[in-house]
């Protein structure tokens, strides 16, 4: 009597010219992910942001970049990990981070381009000191990211370049992003890049495009939140569920997600 494995081999060899490895389940590579804390986005991304890769979140102001990144950091710090926020534009609002649930002692905040004396002058005078070219703070942010990636141990490193004009970001050398990719691959970290312009190109494993959000009008007297819209623009490793070729046309995978964010004062509805 033939054993089950022998029978399986015989069937597979007979069908080999039509269906390769018909009865052998396809090998699946389980890629570790870091949940974002937004169920709609996690479902779209098969669990969350890829670990050991660069994720690029591209969007304009009010598109939800910061709230999504803070949600990721919040999840990670609540699990006992440490995260870094490299603030290329010195724009992180600490109260927002606390409201998002970030465990602040586990967050390393690197403020780039801070000029204490300039801020003091601006506060005293009516002049605006902004407008200086952002090269210095871009360089600081890139150097700090490099050091943290080399050091290792951080689960999420957010490089926040939001608010920096695209004409400056586009001039960052591609070799820097490839170096980051090589460095982040050796660690258990996710490098999340927040930018108004896609600059990591093929060094990034995931490119998420966040479209400008639309404000919610649930109340007449207070601002109650924003509805965000996210779209996957590029993804290096898409989940391959099966090796069976279906007879009918495969339905297209959902490529976008919608979710809402509320300010701290807006209660549950």
């Amino acid at each position, binding site marked *: 009597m033939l054993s089950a494995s022998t029978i399986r081999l015989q069937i597979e060899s007979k069908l080999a010219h039509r269906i390769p490895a018909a009865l052998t389940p396809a090998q699946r590579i389980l890629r570790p992910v870091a949940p974002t804390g937004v169920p709609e986005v996690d479902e779209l991304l098969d669990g969350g942001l890829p670990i050991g890769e660069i994720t690029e979140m591209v969007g304009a102001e009010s598109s939800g970049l910061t*709230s999504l990144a803070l949600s990721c950091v919040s999840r990670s710090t609540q699990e006992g990990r440490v995260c870094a926020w490299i603030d290329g534009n010195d724009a992180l609002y600490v109260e927002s981070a606390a409201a998002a649930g970030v465990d602040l002692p586990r*967050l390393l905040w690197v*403020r780039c*381009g801070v000029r*204490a004396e300039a801020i003091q002058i601006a506060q005293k005078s009516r002049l605006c000191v902004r407008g200086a070219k952002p090269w210095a703070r871009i360089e600081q942010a890139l150097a700090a990211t490099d*050091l*943290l990636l080399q050091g290792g*141990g951080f689960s999420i490193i957010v490089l926040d370049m939001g608010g920096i004009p695209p004409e400056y970001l586009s001039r960052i050398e591609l070799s820097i992003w490839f170096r980051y990719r090589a460095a982040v691959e050796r660690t258990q970290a996710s490098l999340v890049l927040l930018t108004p312009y896609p600059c990591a190109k093929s060094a990034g494993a995931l490119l998420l495009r966040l479209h400008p959000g639309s404000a919610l009008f649930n109340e007449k007297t207070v601002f109650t939140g924003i509805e965000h819209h996210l779209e996957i623009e590029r993804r290096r490793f898409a989940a391959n569920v099966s090796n069976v070729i279906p007879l009918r046309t495969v339905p297209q995978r959902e490529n976008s997600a919608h979710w809402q964010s509320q300010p701290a004062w807006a209660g549950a509805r």
Partner: protein
Amino acid sequence: MSKAVQLYAALLVREFPAQALLRLRNDLYHQPCVVMQGEPPLQQVASLNMRAKALGLMRGMTKTEVEVFSNIIILRRSWNEEKMAKLILLECVEGFSPRIEQCSEDGEFLCVIDIAGTEKLFGPAESLARKLLSRVKTLGIVACVAVSDNFDASIALAKGMPARHIQVAAASEKKAKLAPLPIAVLGLTEEQKGKFSLWGIHTLAALAQLPEKELIARLGQEGKRLRQMAHGEMPHLFQPVEPVFSLEECMELESPVVILDALMFVVNVMLEQLILRATARVLALASLTIRLALEGGSSHSRTVRPAQPTNERQIWLKLLHLDLELHPPIAAILGVELEADPGRTSKIQLGLFSPQLPEPSRLDVTLARIRSIVGDGNVGSPVLQDTNKVDEFRMESFHITTLLPSKIDSRPLRSAMRMVRPAELTSVTVRSQRPKKFTFRDHYYLVEHAYGPWVASGEWWTSRHWECEQWDLIARSQGGKALCCCLMHDCIQGDWRMVAIYD
């Protein structure tokens, strides 16, 4: 009643002023060096090393006489460094016995330690002497050790033997070992030396053979004391000192230093000594303060404190280097002083399933590097201040904690705000006391919805008094670009500023 066992070890460091200086100057170790003291032009050689002695130099020579010899390194006597070296030696000796009596004279360091009862810890007396000698050698000092059951006999034996040697004189052979020693080892006065020389007494054996009564008749009670010392039977009341444990090192530089890297070479040697001393007590350095004496009489002080006590010299050097790069001294450096706080050599016990965290010592260096890039006070963990003023926080140094957060929060996704620092001045068109249009970063926005005003004020009792109206605006640019932002109307100055953007 039986007499208590007595055992003493005498540690003698000859040419102490020279050794105290050369201890931290490894590069001069193989060169002939002399230490001068006194005010110019009356400077004299106070101490010198073996290589200088081999060339024919000796104590008491003037600077002009020294300059006759070529390639001689002339150092200035440093009382501070000698004092520090004495403290370090006493602290080192304390590791063998807590009962120490110091008998130093000018130009040498001498201490006697009561080692009775230490056999179980350090083995026989000879083994203890070897360990003591090797421990002192690690401090960069050459010494000799003599062990005897009599206090003064141990001193005499130490003075009568060459450096790097040890001698253990048991009770039975004590007299035989003391006999050939010159009478100078007893520390005679000039008058006593003259008398003994006149009598033809040159060794302790000859002195010991003199009749006691006749000797007392000629030299008084001092004669009796010297005779007892020559026999190795002089009784002594032990007067112990209590060395204070302090991790300090100091060095006076021969010439002003302006380059930071050159300073780091000096600091490296000092740090090595500090770590060595801390390690001997199973401790680690928790913080390090560097005090620089500068030209013009001023000083510059910096303190480096990593997350965990460590004895990694390279880490300390890097942290100090980065800190001094960020806060450089304002003038040339004349002297360096290092002071360390000891801490426990603790290790973080990580679990098999605990999340990966940055390595503390490596993180300290990384943070110091980032601090040197972005500036002090711009790296760390943010801490919210207890105030109603917008954007009030302080930065604290970032430390790794292995404790898990107390609660896992499941709150709805919050709209975050991106601060505009400093708040940008904005031109706003107001209609019916509500903002209708504004310009921001060269874009013209029409307000679709305006929520507010939310009035806030505070600290009227200080100069930080604020009084403002906050407006949450939903606006759209001419190109259709939506913007949810927060504008602040300063009621005191009457201007509008863009404070934050909802994102």
